[in-house]
């Protein structure tokens, strides 16, 4: 175990020459990667409308820059290993805590830069075609650029404050983008839902950040991690709490159970948004956070890892099951993402740092591809529902072939990207001894293959059930898909146990207090079982959705009695949140106010009235005949008059209030002078 002297530590262990990057202009200027999207955002907002493509070209240009720059950084990392922390700029101070802005280029972040930059570039290009003719296309690209920029800001963060700023930026822009078609109430409420759920989780992140930062005395991640390694007793007491709280934040962003509810609803946004959100930016933020803070989980808060892996496993399985019942093609993919994120989180929880990130890496390619394919289909048939599709293989050959490539990659079929990453995750479960999780993972692999097969068969085979004439999408949309399809095929070849494990080195240059197990070769039994499960899933899908002509027409004839309604209602989670949390809070407050109003206040008033009447009645009965009318009437008159006059005090006339105030103030002063 090496001491962390800086945020980034020497990469010598990996056997490569450390390149600290001092004086290397590419690293010194790496902050451009973060700044350019924000500048592009401003440029689009101010000048976008006047440009021929309404600002899209600025966005694509900025992303092209980011992608190229990220590729350069990545290649530097691959060839030489990069560890660089830019000199932080002090923005302000909270007490003794400096608020800084800086940027990090190391293995993890350079990988993330590349993923974000490359996918954003491809998806933005795709969006040029997809969003053409949209009313708010300028605003879309502005928010989209902001989205990517926030993610880059988050990734480049050397301290928790900057990370939180980027984190919130991602949340904000996702809110804007999900609610892009705000004319429909549903869409805007989907945006709100995403925002709220994330906000709830963010509370954990923010508190966690402070919990960790206060004993250490700094928000710098390097300082915190150094303290973790060097000086465990200083933060021993808070590490566990902090880790759990940070993970709650990550759960929100990465849509882990029980915060996963927002992600499927977020499909209300335009498809490019979904693609970027699922592939590279938003949902990976949580995984990135856990990976970034991995030493904390690995060293100090090992118990927290139990939580992480549990949550990951639960998410993995329930989301996979949900994906099976969806009709909306994007929701299938959305639940699929949740499920795959479960894999990543579980892998990190199991201590398999590389495996988790590797799955993130491959997932970015094929999930981006799948979303673009789904978008292409939606663009063509003008519906999200698979019940309106079918038989699209012929009219949309490019979409079909790329989509199938993505499906196979996601299902984990050899030799596509998903195969290697999923296998590595499963192998890690096996190696670390989480057998239950391994079983869940294998079942998950089966389910994954099954629902993806279902999607493909329902969408591209059988007969067309929609309206209008489907057509292939324009070049500007298909070319990014083809590029991604290529990456989905070859993306996994960078980490083949026994053959070439470059990826381990690329992302592993940083957090090396972790003694991570690296398999020398495939874990053959697990591999065999996993692959078999995936193949079985595909076969099951084939049988149910291709062979059975009945399902071609009616869709989902097989319905497991108890499970099906549960899945259709998404485990009743939304109902639980609404009925269990929102309404109980909302209702009692309203009821309490109403009750106070009707019983206490009215009661006082009515009671007073009743009392007065009773007294009057008695008085009337007893004294009236005695001829003391004068006194009685006087009394009643006084009461009535007093009440009436008191009521008149509230005239609603400002000047009378002002007059009373003035006189009162003057009298108060006089009173002070006299009685002092």
């Amino acid at each position: 175990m090496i001491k962390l002297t800086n945020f980034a530590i020497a990469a010598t262990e990996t056997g490569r020459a450390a390149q600290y990057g001092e004086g290397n202009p590419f690293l010194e200027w790496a902050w451009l990667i973060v700044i350019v999207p924000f500048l592009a955002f401003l440029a689009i907002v101010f000048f976008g409308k006047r440009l021929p493509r309404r600002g899209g070209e600025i966005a694509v240009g900025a992303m092209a820059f980011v992608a190229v720059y990220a590729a350069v950084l990545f290649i530097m990392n691959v060839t030489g290993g990069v560890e660089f922390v830019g000199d932080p700029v002090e923005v302000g101070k909270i007490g003794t805590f400096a608020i800084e802005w800086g940027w990090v280029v190391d293995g993890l972040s350079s990988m993330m830069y590349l993923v974000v930059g490359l996918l954003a570039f491809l998806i933005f290009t795709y969006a040029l075609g997809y969003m053409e003719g949209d009313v708010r296309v300028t605003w879309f690209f502005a928010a989209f650029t902001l989205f990517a920029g926030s993610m880059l800001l988050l990734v480049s963060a050397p301290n928790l404050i900057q990370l939180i700023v980027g984190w919130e930026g991602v949340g904000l822009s996702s809110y804007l983008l999900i609610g892009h078609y705000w004319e429909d109430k549903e869409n805007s409420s989907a945006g709100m839902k995403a925002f709220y759920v994330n906000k709830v989780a963010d509370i954990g992140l923010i508190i966690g950040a402070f919990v960790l930062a206060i004993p250490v005395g700094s928000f710098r991640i390097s300082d915190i991690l150094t303290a973790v390694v060097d000086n465990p007793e200083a933060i021993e007491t808070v590490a566990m709490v902090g880790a759990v709280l940070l993970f709650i934040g990550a759960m929100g962003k990465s849509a882990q159970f029980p915060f996963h509810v927002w992600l499927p609803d977020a499909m209300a946004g335009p498809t490019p948004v979904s693609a970027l959100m699922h592939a590279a930016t938003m949902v990976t933020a949580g995984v990135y956070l856990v990976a970034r803070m991995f030493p904390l989980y690995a060293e100090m808060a090992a118990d927290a890892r139990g939580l992480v892996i549990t949550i990951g496993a639960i998410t993995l399985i329930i989301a996979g099951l949900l994906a099976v019942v969806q009709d909306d093609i994007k929701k299938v993919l959305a639940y699929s993402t949740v499920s795959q994120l479960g894999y990543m989180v579980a892998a990190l929880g199991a201590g398999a740092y590389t495996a988790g990130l590797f799955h993130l890496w491959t997932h970015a390619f094929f999930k981006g591809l799948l979303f673009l394919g789904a978008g292409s289909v939606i663009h063509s048939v003008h519906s999200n529902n698979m019940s309106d599709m079918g038989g699209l293989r012929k009219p949309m050959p490019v979409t079909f072939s790329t989509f199938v490539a993505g499906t196979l990659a996601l299902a984990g079929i050899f030799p596509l990207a998903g195969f290697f990453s999923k296998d590595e995750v499963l192998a890690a479960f096996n190696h670390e001894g989480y057998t239950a999780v391994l079983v869940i993972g294998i079942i998950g692999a089966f389910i994954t293959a099954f629902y993806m097969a279902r999607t493909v068969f329902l969408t591209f085979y059988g007969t067309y059930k929609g309206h209008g004439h489907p057509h292939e999408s324009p070049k500007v949309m298909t070319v990014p898909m083809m590029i991604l399809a290529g990456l989905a095929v070859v993306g996994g070849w960078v980490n083949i146990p026994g053959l070439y494990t470059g990826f381990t080195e690329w992302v592993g240059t940083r957090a090396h207090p972790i003694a991570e197990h690296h398999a020398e070769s495939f874990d053959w039994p697990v591999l065999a079982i996993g692959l078999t499960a995936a193949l079985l899933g595909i076969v099951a899908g084939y049988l149910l959705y291709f062979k059975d002509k009945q399902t071609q027409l009616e869709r989902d004839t097989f319905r497991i009695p108890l499970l099906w309604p549960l899945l259709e209602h998404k485990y009743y989670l939304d109902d639980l949140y609404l009925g269990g949390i929102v309404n109980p809070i909302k209702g009692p407050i309203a009821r309490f106010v109403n009750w106070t109003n009707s019983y206490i206040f009215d009661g006082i008033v009515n009671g007073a009235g009743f009392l007065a009447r009773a007294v009057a009645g008695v008085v009337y009965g007893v004294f009236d005949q005695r001829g003391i009318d004068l006194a009685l009437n006087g009394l009643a008159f006084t009461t009535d008059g007093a009440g009436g006059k008191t009521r008149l005090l509230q005239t609603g006339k400002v000047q009378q209030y002002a007059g009373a105030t003035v006189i009162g103030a003057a009298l108060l002063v006089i009173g002070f002078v006299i009685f002092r």
Partner: protein
Amino acid sequence: MLLNQFLILGALLFSLGIYGLLVRRNAVMVLLSIELMLNAVNVNLVAFEAFLQNANVGGQIFAIFVITVAAAEVGVGLAIILMIFRNRTSANIDELDLMKW
């Protein structure tokens, strides 16, 4: 010059403003009375400043602030009156008693 001669003038202006504030029905005239009161404050501020001869001239600076805020107040106040006038074709403040019981 006595300090008090300014203070008492200020007090006089202020109480005249109070009188106007209480007695006027027309909202514009109420605003005018408020201006009078703010001006009384200015007199006091500048008089105290001249009396104390402070190096940081806080009195004068705050008089300037008061003037500025008065400008803002008039802007918003007149806009409100304009709107009320449009909706009710009356600028009489005592007809604006929607808030009463």
